[in-house]
């Protein structure tokens, strides 16, 4: 197992929308180089929690610590420069640009050439090369010149992943990366995420509804319910946790052992 340094941490993180407490004093610790899943029913506050981590919204109170640094009030365009990449539940790409340009823009954001308006973008080969590299990694190499909106949904999810990978972040926040994908495409994407996490020594924080996936790939699982952390532990512990079972999982999800080892774990 990878080392157990804490890379990401929240302290009493809380977000209120009016009377609704979407995230209720969450204390979470994410160890470096692990795949940490967050599960919970709809409305448990998972996506809001992600938004707080990535800086999309500001918390009501509490702190977000990334590698020992307080990033609670950093705006979203800064957090990515610290090494936090984030994907969205709803596909969020540049629809009328090519696949290559989508990824290239993600790579360019990390450089220092953004304001060189007197030079052609094609003069900066390093970003284009990076885009090709990433496109190959996520399996979109033969579609680089397609417009992003013409891709099938599954490929758009891959593109989304590619756009997070291009800046080479240390932590990936993946909000339901398989949402809306045909079920036969899911194993491929999950295998890709696992490979990226292991080979690249990255930390992945994953929100996922597919229990089979979660139970097989995760090192740690945090269960959220009504904005609170209900339980945390290894997949086996979560499966055995009677509180999780009775509180809500039993009624909603099948927690039996997943079907054959598709995701090699």
């Amino acid at each position: 197992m990878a080392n157990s340094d804490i890379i990401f941490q929240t302290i009493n993180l809380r977000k209120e929308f009016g009377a609704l407490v979407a995230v209720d004093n969450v204390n979470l610790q994410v160890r470096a180089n692990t795949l940490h899943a967050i599960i919970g029913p709809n409305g448990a506050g998972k996506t809001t929690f992600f938004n707080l981590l990535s800086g999309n919204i500001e918390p009501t109170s509490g702190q977000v610590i990334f590698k020992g640094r307080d990033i609670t009030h950093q705006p979203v365009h800064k957090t990515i420069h610290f090494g936090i990449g984030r994907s969205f539940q709803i596909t969020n790409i540049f629809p009328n640009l090519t696949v290559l340009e989508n990824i290239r823009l993600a790579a360019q954001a990390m450089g220092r050439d953004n304001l060189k308006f007197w030079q052609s973008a094609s003069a900066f080969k390093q970003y284009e090369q990076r885009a090709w590299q990433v496109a190959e990694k996520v399996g979109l190499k033969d579609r680089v010149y397609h417009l992003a909106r013409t891709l099938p949904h599954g490929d758009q999810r891959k593109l989304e992943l590619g756009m997070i990978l291009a800046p080479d972040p240390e932590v990936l926040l993946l909000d339901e990366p398989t949402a809306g994908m045909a079920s036969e495409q899911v194993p491929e994407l999950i295998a890709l995420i696992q490979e990226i996490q292991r080979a690249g020594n990255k930390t992945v924080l994953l929100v996922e509804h597919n229990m089979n996936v979660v139970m097989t790939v995760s090192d740690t699982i945090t269960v959220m319910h009504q904005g609170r952390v209900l339980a945390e532990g290894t997949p086996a512990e979560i499966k055995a946790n009677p509180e999780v079972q009775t509180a809500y999982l039993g009624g909603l999800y099948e927690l039996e052992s997943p079907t054959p080892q598709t995701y090699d774990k």
Partner: protein
Amino acid sequence: MTKSFFRQHQASLLTLLALVLFPFLVGLFEGASPAVVWANGSGTSKFMQGLAIEVFILAMFALSYDLIFGITGLLSFGHSMFFAVGAYASGIAIKSFGLNLGQTFLLVLAAAFIQAVLVGIVLPRVKGITFALVTLGMASVLHLIVMSTELGPYTGADVGLQGVIIPDFINPAVERLRLYFVAMTVFILFYLLYKRFVDSPTGRVCVAIRENEDRAKMLGYNVFTFKFAALLLSSITAALAGFLHTIYQPIVSPNTASLAFTVTALLIVLIGGVGTLSGAFLGAIVFRALDFGLRRYIGESASFINGAVYVLFVLFIPYGIIGTWRLKSLELKKGWEDLLKRFQRSMG
């Protein structure tokens, strides 16, 4: 790079050639020799040069509008303020303060810069309908200022700024051909600058902002900076177009600060093709020719027909001339390749 420079830029070079020859060709058409045209002899050529200068000014204004609307994706209803500031600043500088053209040029640049910074405090932070309304409000304020009687001695209030003495060497009444080439050169320089800007790392981010602003932010771009860069460039371009307007027109009317003038830019860009840049030039030609032709042959009721033409344009050619052309040529190319493939297959 198999294609030669000439083949690659065929269309642009042909356009350039046509623009250079235009005054002389019009002269020949009427029987006036190039020498007469060269010596600024009066005639159809001189008249058409005047129309062409107006087209260059309009095209430059529309180009700057396309950068905000077509490239960065911000619908502005107050773009005329940038033009008006350039037009009035240069007129007042020459008339009331007796500055020469060089000094006036620097003053216009400074005014455009200051204006971009002032509106740039607010504008890059808003988008969509808010952006449209805020720009509308700003332009209305400027319109009121130039119309105010208190500033009448400088701006000419609702009559407009008159009596700006333009030095002979560029005065449209004396050296119109020279002014034609100056306006043409300025427009072409800005067109090339815009082409480069849109293709630069900065411009690519502006396009990304148009496509999906939130995603651009998530990629790590501070969108404020890029919107401000686009505004600044656009402001300078429009102000210089205003400066040319002051040189060419005997009067700077308060209409240059009105909503109608912004809509003119919007129409030109819609006719030419949103976000295409070259559409601004083509659109300006169509706009000015249509306006002129209809007014001449139909009279004042022309604006009614004018309006109908634009409605038809937006309904049936929504991508504009250049935009539709690009789409169709892509389709044609694809169809041609398909046909070739089939032919090759059938030949075994």
